[in-house]
């Protein structure tokens, strides 16, 4: 991937930046210049919630050529607290423990390595929310 493409995609990949329609309030990710709901061009950048819940997930066992070293990996359909849905890898978990409704939070991880120069692409992935208090309670 080229360096300009890398830079261009940083807001949506690193910081979960989407677009909010100033006219009707709808939020989109990745960003959009035109609101499909009301047709407005008056869009502003908005940082999306870093927490959400799992709606559905799959384990990718046959991966694309540039992600073969990651496999098997989990991809979830996640609904963020602000109502936006995203697709993301779900990490730091055993797929057997995943179920719809599980609370997840965003974390910055390596996505893939590009070309012979080894340029590394980073971005968000999600992981189960750690509930320290619940675990401490179980230990008593």
């Amino acid at each position, binding site marked *: 991937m080229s360096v300009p493409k890398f830079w261009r*995609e940083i807001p*949506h*990949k690193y910081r979960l930046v989407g677009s909010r329609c100033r006219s009707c309030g709808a939020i*989109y*990710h*990745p960003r959009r210049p035109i609101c*499909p709901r009301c047709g407005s061009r008056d869009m502003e950048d908005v940082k999306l919630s870093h927490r959400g819940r799992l*709606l*559905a*997930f*799959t*384990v*990718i*066992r*046959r*991966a*694309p*050529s*540039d*992600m*073969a070293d*990651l496999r098997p*990996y989990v*991809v979830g*359909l996640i609904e963020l607290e602000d109502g*936006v*849905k*995203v*697709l*993301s*890898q779900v990490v730091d978990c055993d*797929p057997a423990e995943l179920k*719809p409704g599980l609370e997840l939070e965003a974390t910055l991880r390596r*996505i*893939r390595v590009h070309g012979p120069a080894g340029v590394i692409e980073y*971005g*968000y992935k999600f992981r189960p929310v750690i509930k320290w208090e619940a675990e401490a309670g179980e230990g008593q």
Partner: protein
Amino acid sequence: MKPIAAILGVGCTKVGEHWERSLLDLAIEACEKALEDAGNPPVRALYVGNAASELMNEQGNISALLADALALDGVKAVEVRAGDASGSLAIHQACLDASFSRGQEGAILVCGVEKMTDVMAPEVARIQMLFEDSRSTFHSGVTIYGLCALLTSLYMSTYGVSYEDIVLLAVNDHKNAANNPYAQYPFPITVETVLSSPLVADPIRLFDTAGIGDGAAAIVLKGPEGARSSSDTPVAVLASEVATDKVNICEREDLLALRSLRLAAGKALGRAGVGLDRLSFIELHNTTSVIGILSLEALGLAEPGKGVDLLKEGAVAIGGRWPVNTMGGLKGRGHPWGATGVYQVVEAVWQLRGEAGKNQVDGAEIGLTSNMCGLGSISCVHVLARWEVMA
């Protein structure tokens, strides 16, 4: 019922791993067969549907290349690209050409072709992800089968349906493919075959997915005027319609509604002046079974969540109410992306001319084909009929 075009001839290669043959070899075979079938009329235009020749075969600009190879000197040539909907969209463009240039001499040749085995399977998976919004697919690493898996899970949990019932469509496809000499997988399977095959993207298993194959299919068409004098057995194109949906499934209001197909089918049936009750058979796009089932629902043949009932009741079998994928569909015949939409129309023509052999649907009069890119970012529907039906 007024036709927009007449199909005069069809032809195709067997779908398979044609290691010894190039993209061009396959396209030439299909085109020559279709032209011969049509009685070798002069050709004035060539439309080619292909998804990824640059990425898989190191070859671009293939409409001019194919026109040159077929010695169609000086002919108009157009290439159409829309992932695995490329073939049907090439036919759509040819139909527009036919109706726009009414009265012009010469026929229009349409070829859908894909040569997939020039690259390894993981590279095929990567290229297929380019047909979705790549900002989303490459960031998450979700493959097309991964997206199908998410929809399968949602379908199962929303409607309380089992995976065993969903894959009945794959079983149906293989049963029909067994009698199709051009099919990539001409053998029957059972639900158990699917369930014991390797997982691709949970819960989807290998025998629930369309394979990787090479193939080309072609048709010859012209405007409807004088079709009867050009051919003994012309097939009428009653409608050719296209519609789109949100490319990113996350943004769809209802993830289990294939809106582009619903819109395209509604327009096509309206244009054809045909109700669902008049359809003799349906060729569906089933990258995996769930997409085929959602297609049955988008077409209006079943309520949401009830598509599997049509499978369980045998309604989609040959001899049933709405035979589906009569020559094997994407699962059994094979799914060479840019060729698939043309294969569907070739097979529909066989049915309507009474040439479908053991898989002939008795009294087939009107058929519908539905081809889409990926998970329905774009859908193209054709309604075809025996010429006599309009009399």
